[in-house]
């Protein structure tokens, strides 16, 4: 390899390494700001690395699992309330007043955006379903004891919404 090529090789490699270092530092500094949502535990106890805790009145997103048996629906309107928890034990109550995505159900992932109206109380303006990467045929899911019941709405609820 002649000297000029070697020089270009060193320059190009330095460029790659330099950009990688800068990007790593940048991402490290930004780290938890790149998260899409707060987990329920972070709302209760604050973020693990920075201790930042959302205040009442903040507009935030929370993500976690819909707690089984926590779903309360108003029979006359679309108003709904449910609890969202995570593995670390935090729990937040979410209220919402609109149609939910098809995949929404108890025991499954959800990302809700809204205003924190009280400690552990979120008034959501948008509820999105988060699904995992475990795709399987219905028979397999049934054998594993997982099944999926779609949300049903009565005529009255649709009219009231």
């Amino acid at each position, binding site marked *: 390899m002649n000297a000029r*090529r070697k020089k270009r090789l060193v320059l190009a490699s330095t460029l790659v390494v330099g950009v990688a270092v800068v990007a790593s530092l940048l991402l490290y500094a930004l780290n938890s700001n790149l998260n*899409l949502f707060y987990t329920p535990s972070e709302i209760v106890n604050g973020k693990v690395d920075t201790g930042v805790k959302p205040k009442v009145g903040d507009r935030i997103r929370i993500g976690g699992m819909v707690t089984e048996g926590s779903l309360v629906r108003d029979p006359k309107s679309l108003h709904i309330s449910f609890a969202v928890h995570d593995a670390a034990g935090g729990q937040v109550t979410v209220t919402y007043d609109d149609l939910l995505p098809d*995949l929404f159900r108890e025991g499954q992932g959800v990302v809700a955006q809204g205003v924190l109206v009280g400690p552990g109380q979120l008034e959501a303006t948008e509820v999105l379903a988060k699904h995992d*990467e475990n*795709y399987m045929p219905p028979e*397999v899911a049934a054998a594993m004891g997982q099944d999926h019941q779609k949300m049903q709405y009565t005529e009255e609820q649709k009219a009231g919404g």
Partner: protein
Amino acid sequence: MWKWLHPYAEPQRAYRLAGKFIPWLSILAILMLLTGTTWGMVFSPTDYQQGDSYRIIFVHVPAASMSMSAYIGMAIAAFIGLVWQIKLADWMAASIAPIGAVITFIALVTGSTWGKPMWGTWWVWDARLTSELVLLFLYLGVISLYASFEDKVLAARAAGILSIVGVINIPIIKYSVDWWNSLHQGSIKMTGKTAMPPDMLVPLVINILGFGVMIGALSLIRFRSEILARNGMRPWVRELALAEGAK
């Protein structure tokens, strides 16, 4: 050690060699994509949660995964072009860029159409979606840089530096769903206890490879045109043009 490669760095030989590969790669790509897509769309079982909607995975995942592979290919070509100043490598990088951009666009559009019925939204600014959008912008940047200089040696250098710098985005896309919490689900598990069932995984892998071969074939077609465009004044190109009936 690399001496045997040198004759292929000559445009005319590269042009001919690429011409020999194109039909085989095209046939292989068509066969793989037909098999993978038919299998996935018709014969694979439905998903227990998403029903038939999940089938867009057979286009979305191959496009997304190959948009990253194509970028790596382009960046390697650009690196070789920059360091060893092999023009053919520069032309190869320039040929891959628009194809990569289209594949990235397909990944974004299919992802969006999948997101609306399943998540409940077309778009959310989470790490995975945003970094894939940045990939599209990187491709567009490389394309426009290469197009904006009359002097193609200079153009290739500028575009090459951008593609090399942009490589840093690839691990960010890949690991975004592990490093940060996002609406986007994690990567498909190929092995292990919770691996995707073979009835879904095999057609998916066939389509991923099929997309790769297709990108290869399309890149070679563009590569050949790029060689002709850059060598328009050479006698062999003129002879070729005359033989094809140009006036």
